[in-house]
Structure formats: C-alpha cells, structure tokens
C-alpha cells in the first residue's frame, strides 16, 4: 500500500515536471480538448433548451369543452364532477358566454382597431381544462376528450388533435435527431481528444526510450504519462466549461426576457449538473485511455525488439 502511494507520489512529481518541461505541448493539448468539449457543451446547451422549449409548448396544450347554450345545471354539475374525479386534471377554468365574447371583442379590437357589435353573442360557454405533467399527457388529453364529447350538454371538444399528432412526431424526430447528432459528435470529439494526447506522447518517444534504456520499470514510464493525460482532460474540460458558463450568464442576462416572450415560463438553461460531471469525467477518462493506449503501444514496439 505504502509503495503504491510512494509510486503515485513520484509519478505525480514527474507529471508536474513533465508539464513544466513540455508546457507548450501540454497547453496545445489542453486548448484542443477545451475546444472539443466546448463544441459538445454548446450542443448540449442547445439540446437542453430545445427540449425545454418543446416541453413548454407541450405544457400549453389544453382541452377546451364547448357547452350547448341549453345545457342544464344538472348536466353542468355532471361535467364538473367528471373533471374533479379525473386525477390527471390539474385545473379547470369556466368561461361563460359573456366572458368569451368580451375576450373575443378585446382581442379583435387589439388586432384591427374595430369594435365588433353583432347585436347577439354567437360564442358558446366553455371549460378550459389543463392537465398535469406526465409522460403520456397528450394521450390522456385525447382519451379524456373522447370520453366527454358524448356527454349531454357538450357541444364539442377541441385540443388540436391533428396538430398535436404532428407536434408529437416532430418532437420524437427532434429528440432522435439530436441524440444521433450528439452521439456522432461525441464520437468525433473522442477521436480528436485521444489523437491530440497521442500526438503529445509520440512527440516524446525519445524520453520513453531513454527511460527504458536507463532501467525504468514499465510502471514508472507509464504513470506520469497517464496522470498527464488525465490532467490534460481535466484542465481542458474545466477551461471549456468555465468559459461556457461565462458566456451562458451573459446570454441569459441579455436574452432571457426575449426567450420568455417566445416560450412562456421557459427558463434559459445551462448544462445540468450531472451532465457537467459526466463531461468532466468523460474528458478525464478519454485522457487516461488515450495516454494508456499510446504508451502501451509504443512500449510494445520497443519491447518487441
């Protein structure tokens, strides 16, 4: 145990000495990793916010139940009971005929500047029903709409069935597309990072060769390179995420209001904490694996003799 700690300490000292002696190569690797992680991070920010944007649209979908003008109080009570007993219903808002007409007149006046006066009210009374968030929210809306549209006193129901169907397909497409793009991007970036680290090791083949010549053990040769690879991954990812954080807070302070006006209630998000940890961890891991493969391969070549 003590000898393992001793070996790690020596390795760490050697790593720091190597970083100092090869500062330029180290910096180039760190910047390359930072750029790669930055590209992936930006992609994740876009992914999370687009997802949030789609979810906020989804949240705005509601079921409107239009009532017949001659609906009886008993029929109304029956409908209200149905809303209350459905555990998925979040809230119900009753809109009377007069209220509907007032809202319609106001919105028309805002748009065209004309005051409507038909002499009668053509609009029906209605209930606006909002549903709780759940995985199959749109399916529940559709099922509930079918259930109540044949109830007595109900004129019709509306929740944009065809629009929702198209929207759902669009959301599935968006998510699959983003995930596939993310996977391809991640794969490409893994190759870029690992090749950068491999090149930095290949540029120091003489050092590895000399270490073996003067009697270094394979562990003594490998440990500083592995630590350096991990350090490159750590520094690169922290640099990148730090810069992205600064840019994010700037953009948020500048554009949050505009974002909210496009998608009500939507917050402009940064990469979530678990993903931040995954990004840093993955970067360190890639550094470690790339260094291991490179030193291992080069030492194999030397040992084949």
């Amino acid at each position, binding site marked *: 145990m003590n000898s393992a700690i*001793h070996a790690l300490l*020596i390795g760490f000292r*050697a790593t720091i000495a190597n970083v100092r*002696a*090869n500062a330029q190569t180290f910096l180039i690797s760190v910047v390359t990793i930072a750029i790669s992680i930055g590209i992936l991070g930006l992609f994740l920010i876009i992914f999370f916010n687009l997802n949030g944007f789609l979810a906020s649209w989804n949240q705005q979908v509601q079921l409107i139940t239009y009532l017949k003008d001659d609906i009886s109080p008993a029929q109304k009570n029956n409908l209200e009971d149905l809303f209350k007993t459905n555990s998925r219903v979040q809230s119900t808002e009753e809109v009377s005929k007069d209220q509907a007409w007032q809202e319609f007149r106001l919105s028309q006046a805002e748009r065209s500047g004309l005051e409507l006066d038909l002499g009668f009210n053509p609009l029906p009374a209605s209930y606006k029903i909002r549903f709780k968030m759940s995985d199959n929210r749109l399916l529940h809306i559709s099922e509930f709409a079918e259930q109540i549209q044949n109830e007595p006193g109900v004129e019709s129901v509306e929740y944009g069935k065809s629009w929702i169907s198209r929207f759902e397909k669009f959301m599935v497409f968006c998510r699959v597309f983003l995930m596939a793009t993310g996977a391809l991007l991640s794969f490409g970036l893994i190759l870029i990072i690992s090749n950068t680290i491999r090149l930095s090791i290949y540029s120091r083949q*003489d*050092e590895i*060769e*000399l*270490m*073996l*010549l*003067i*009697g*270094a*053990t*394979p562990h*003594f040769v490998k440990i500083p390179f592995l630590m350096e690879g991990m350090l490159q991954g750590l520094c690169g990812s922290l640099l990148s995420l730090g810069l992205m954080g600064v840019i994010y807070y700037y953009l948020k302070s500048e554009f949050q209001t505009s974002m909210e006006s496009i998608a009500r209630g939507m917050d402009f998000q940064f990469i979530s904490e678990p993903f931040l940890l995954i990004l840093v961890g993955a970067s360190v891991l890639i550094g470690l694996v790339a260094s291991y493969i490179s030193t291992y391969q080069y*030492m194999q070549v030397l*040992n*084949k*003799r």
Partner: protein
Amino acid sequence: MIQLFNVIKKYGSGSPALDDISLKIERGEFVFLTGPSGAGKTTILKVLFGWEDFEEGQVLVQGINVGKLNAGNMHTLRRSIGVIFQDYKLLTNKTVFENVAFAQEVTNRDRKTIKFKTWEALKNVGLTPKKDSFPPQLSGGEQQRVAIARAMVNAPPIILADEPTGNLDQEISLEILKLFEELNRNGATIVFATHSQDILKLGNHRVIVLSRGKVVSS
C-alpha cells in the same frame, strides 16, 4: 561477468548480424570491440542490455540470463549497466543536471541522494559549471561527458559504450577515453565499441575484432 554462447541474431531473412558468436569478458576488464561498419558491434551491445532479441544461443550478464527476461523485469538488467551512445541521447528540454539526475529518478532514489550523486558525477567529468545549461548549448565533447556522467551516476558494474568518440575530434576523444579508463580503474567493466584505429592504439586494452557478425580475433 559477460558471456555469450553461440549467439545468432538475424534481421529479416538476410545474413545474420551475429553469426554464432561466443565470447567472455571478465569482471573489471576494459575491452575494445572493433570492426568495419555492419560488423555487429552495436548489435552485440544491444543484445547485452536487452534492447535486441536474438534467435539462438545464450547471453549471461552479471549472472542474469538475458534471453529469459521480459518487459516486466528487464529493468533489473539495465540498472546494472550504463550505456553511452554516439548520439548522446540526452533530453534537450532538460538541463545538464536534470539529465544526469533523471537516471537516478527512475531507480526511485531519494532527492537528497540524487542531488549529491548528480553533483559528484558532474564533478568527475568536469561539468559542474555547465550544470544549468541545456544540451544544445554544449559542444559535442561536453554532451558526451554529460552522457558519461549519466551512465556512471548509478555506479553500474558494467559500462557499454557504442562509438562514444565517433562524433568527436582526436583531442576530445582522448579526454573521453581517459574518463572511461578512470571508470575502469574504479572497478567498472568497460565494453567500448569503436572503429577508430587511433583510439585502439591510445588505449592499451584487449581488442575483439568482428567482421560480418563473427569474431575474427579476440
């Protein structure tokens, strides 16, 4: 100390680089290894410190059977040998002091000992004033002296030198030869590969002559 028994080494399908070589070098001996280019001088040295494999025969160095070593335990052999090359093999991004200290770091010595031994080795080769210089700032002779300091700093019982004066003029070559003779007087076994007749004449030591991978005189 060093024994080769019927060693055969081939590169590809051509004629062997070492063709049934057998020889013995005693403890504390100073031996010149000579012959024309391609005679097998470098190959013998590489076989001795486990850098080249061989197809047949046996090689014993300090009682270690070189052919039986693998990548995991090769360092046990190499720590008992100091190797010096014609092209010095110094790390250009490390100072003279760091280059010499590096050879001890790989053996896990403590910092104090490393500092003391490095200083001592540099003093022995007359390079203490240049300890903070980088190899490209030194002359060829100085670089070779750094390489010698690095090879001797761990006090190995065997020193193998592959054309250590190949890039140096006669005056400097003589100085380098004297350094090796000093190491030999201190007990190290020296195997010095050279094709320079001047060096062979200046050093009055046993000469092993190689030609086309065979020992022609010993």
